[in-house]
């Protein structure tokens, strides 16, 4: 089948994925941890550096491809999904990783991200969300929380931030997941994204230590991990705080609420079992107010649909079936006539 292009596993190590370029992020930037997580994950996927392409826009995060010893294309601001679309349609065998930032992918590039998700092109989209414009020195971004002071909002931003995962769902994404830079679970999330056939959207909270330092510390710090992180697992109850708390669905008002779990009896507490195919719950999970709830992490939604490139290529194949690429015939399509070489230039014959 056209669509199933499971590549042969290749043996590599983390080292094989490191390019010879000096890494140019600020010391301490969360990007380093993500880079390592990716470089650690790829060997486990049996990925082939020659068949792997990292595509990015512009931003600190978008420097990513330079540091991978695969193929890489650092394009222009916000348009990486469109470049990736062309690459994938031209060669569906390539494994595409799209690296973008909250500015690159959600501000200038929001529309391409949306249509890329809607079309469902098999690939992994890693959105490094540091809630700030790093590369241009700290302006607020569409994901910055209300009140964020920045050079362009000296008195604090006033627009409501967008929620990348809610946006992705609204755009029709079939895979939505979340992680953060230093999380030990990040490789698992990346693997799930890779396993998903279609566009897999992964929001990675990332610490910009220069312009938005520790913005996510309130849930990423070790000390609060238990109470502030809810790691989702398909088929398992939504528990956190070492299993002493969970999320329950309030069916009257249709929202999620926190319940205490006594003696591990989550059924009694009516804790919801995570179903990665439940779209309604996915909506609720990604819209949970961060202040009042633990942050839902891991694979929020995973319900594959046919990919765009698969459909395009299948249609191309059908269209080509039995047809020959005969230029002479193509040129002569439609009504033609022949001028004979006879001396008097006539008569003409209609062919």
């Amino acid at each position: 089948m056209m669509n199933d292009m499971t590549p042969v596993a290749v043996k590599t190590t983390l080292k094989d994925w490191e390019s010879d370029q000096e890494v140019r992020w600020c010391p301490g930037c969360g990007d380093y941890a993500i880079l390592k997580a990716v470089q650690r994950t790829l060997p486990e996927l049996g990925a082939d550096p020659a068949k792997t392409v990292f595509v990015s826009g512009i931003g600190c995060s978008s420097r990513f491809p330079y540091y991978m010893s695969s193929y890489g294309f650092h394009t222009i601001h916000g348009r990486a999904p469109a470049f990736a679309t062309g690459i994938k349609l031209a060669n569906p065998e390539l494994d595409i990783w799209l690296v973008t930032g909250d500015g690159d992918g959600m501000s200038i590039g929001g529309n391409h991200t949306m249509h890329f998700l809607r079309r469902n092109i098999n690939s992994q989209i890693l959105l490094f969300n540091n809630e700030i414009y790093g590369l241009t020195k700290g302006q607020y971004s569409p994901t910055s929380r209300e009140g964020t002071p920045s050079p362009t909002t000296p008195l604090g931003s006033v627009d409501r931030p967008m929620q990348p995962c809610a946006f992705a769902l609204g755009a029709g994404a079939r895979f939505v997941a979340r992680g953060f830079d230093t999380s030990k679970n990040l490789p698992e999330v990346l693997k799930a994204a890779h396993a998903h056939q279609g566009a897999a959207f992964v929001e990675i909270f990332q610490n910009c230590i220069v312009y938005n330092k520790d913005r996510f510390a309130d849930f990423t710090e070790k000390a609060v991990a238990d109470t502030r992180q809810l790691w989702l697992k398909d088929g398992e109850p939504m528990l956190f705080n070492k299993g002493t708390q969970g999320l329950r669905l309030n069916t009257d008002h249709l929202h999620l609420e926190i319940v205490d779990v006594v003696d591990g009896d989550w059924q009694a507490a009516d804790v919801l079992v995570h179903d990665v195919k439940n779209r309604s719950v996915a909506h609720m999970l990604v819209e949970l107010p961060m202040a009042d709830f633990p942050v839902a992490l891991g694979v929020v939604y995973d319900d594959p649909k046919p990919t765009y490139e698969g459909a395009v290529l299948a249609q191309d194949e059908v269209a080509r079936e039995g047809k020959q690429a005969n230029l002479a015939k193509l040129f002569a399509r439609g009504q033609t006539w022949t001028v004979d070489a006879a001396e008097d230039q006539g008569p003409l014959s209609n062919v």
Partner: protein
Amino acid sequence: MATQVDAGQMDVGSEAGRVTDNTPETVVVRFAGDSGDGMQLTGGQFTLSTALAGNDLATFPDFPSEIRAPQGTLFGVSAFQINFGSTEVSTAGDQPDVLVAMNPAALKVNLADLKPSGLIIADTGEFTKRNLEKAKYEVNPLEDGSLAKWTLLAFDISALTLQAVKPFGLGNKEALRCKNMWTLGLALWMFDRPRQPLIDWLNAKFAKKPILAEANIAALNAGHAYGETAEIGGQVKKLTIEPAPQAPGLYRTITGADAISLGLVAGAQLAELPMFFGGYPITPASAILHNLAKMKEFGVTTFQAEDEIAAIAAAIGASYAGSLGVTSSSGPGIALKGEAMGLAVMAELPLVIINSQRGGPSTGLPTKTEQSDLYQAVYGRNGDTPMPVIAARSPADAFECAIEAVRLAVQFMTPVMLLTDGYIGNAAEPWSVPDPEGFEPFPVSFMSETNNPGGKVLPYKRDEKGVRPWIKPGTPDLMHRIGGIEKAPDTGDLDYSPPVHQLQTDARKAKVDGIAHHVPAQEVSQGTTTGKLALVGWGSTYGAIHQAVRRARAKGLDVSHIHVRHIWPMPANLGDLLKGYDKVIVPEMNTGQFKTVLRDQYLVDAKPLNKVSGQPFTIAELEAAIEAALA
């Protein structure tokens, strides 16, 4: 010393014919009616019959930007003009000899162009009070004597059509739709054209609704018969336009949009590449996307993107991945692509960008023609971002230009802009169907092994022409990274140190400048290589300049015609060539854009001759300019 240049199969001294003369050399007919009257279709079919009759011809479709403007309005008038003759024809003609006006609005909008003493054919059935009002006529012009200086042939085509199709029991609306076939029948009679090809075409078109085929054929025959009968009297005679001398071979008619589509496919095949076409609909560029969407068997993948930026980005992505990336738009959409073109220049990836120019600025005149995007093509990017630009001069020429654009793009690893315009795109002319065997293939060879054994691959190592290798991702062992930031020579590693930027800017410029030596030398299309006056044109003004120069030379005036295909870089000999004329005039459908390039590059006193009305130059306008310049 001046040398005589071959002016084609031109019969020097021929003049546009007159309808009153039974054997004119060329005749211009304009069909005009409501958008709903099917004038474009009528014109198209008349064109085919004319081509089959062996005449040379050129056409000019002119339609409103409204999809279907309300019936009878002035802005809803759609027109189709054809110039055909027994001699070479290269414009759609200045002034019609015959105007077919299917309603009052069509008459009003088109009358001013009609040649003095020309023939008007009008459908009295449509000159109702309501339609006259809509056309802002206070009295019926068919009746108030205001048309006295023309020949008027007015009769109730509507009623005659209804009568002809009565046997088929169509509804009134459907029956009236056959009016255009009735009119076409009359026109075929007038110019002594066979009906059979049309009958075949109607039978094919309405294969699923034979009743409609029959009705339309009946209308066609009725119109034809009307001409044969005494009813027209002595006003109009049957005219015979002899076939034009044509090289033997297979012919068809072709529009510019068709020609570009075929040229791209041919170019990709000659380069032995699959083609990826990323587009976003816009008038008048969409036709190319529509055409290519139907040519998948030639390894073509088309992609309707979410906008023009995505369209070019996807095309660049496809080129990066080893396809021939192509994108196409019109001015406003090309504007959006500028940033991405810069990336293609910087990354040095092949790409063909087609601009089907239309009237500007801004949304401007979407369905009218203009050549006002030349500045944008040559200069319209940030940074020092040189890019080859090619301009097609006619529908048939567009085919060759498309192949040339592909060739330059892949041989020089560069984006190439191909300029065409709404006039070329929509107009049709006879095309001698080429034999694909006759083309020189230029197969691309991707790098398959490192160019630096023992070291890292060098994706930006230039060859003697300054061109880097093309490496397909997926190729083992050649992994590398590219992007839009300045880079070191050879390795392509990020490097924006001062000497490197100087070196790379110079290298990019030298590569593109050097193309001047890899394109054909500029020829003089008509006239002599030195002399008193040269008209230097580009793009779709070709036909009008050609005829104007022909007429002027016939009068003994020392004027030559140079038509430039390679707008940037220009052919290496062009500067010297231009210096051989006392005067240089650059006729353009803009406010003087190509003249800037010529003056800058060659410091010749090129004088602009500009027209920006959304209409092509007439031959007469150019003749007048020549005479004034030589007076």
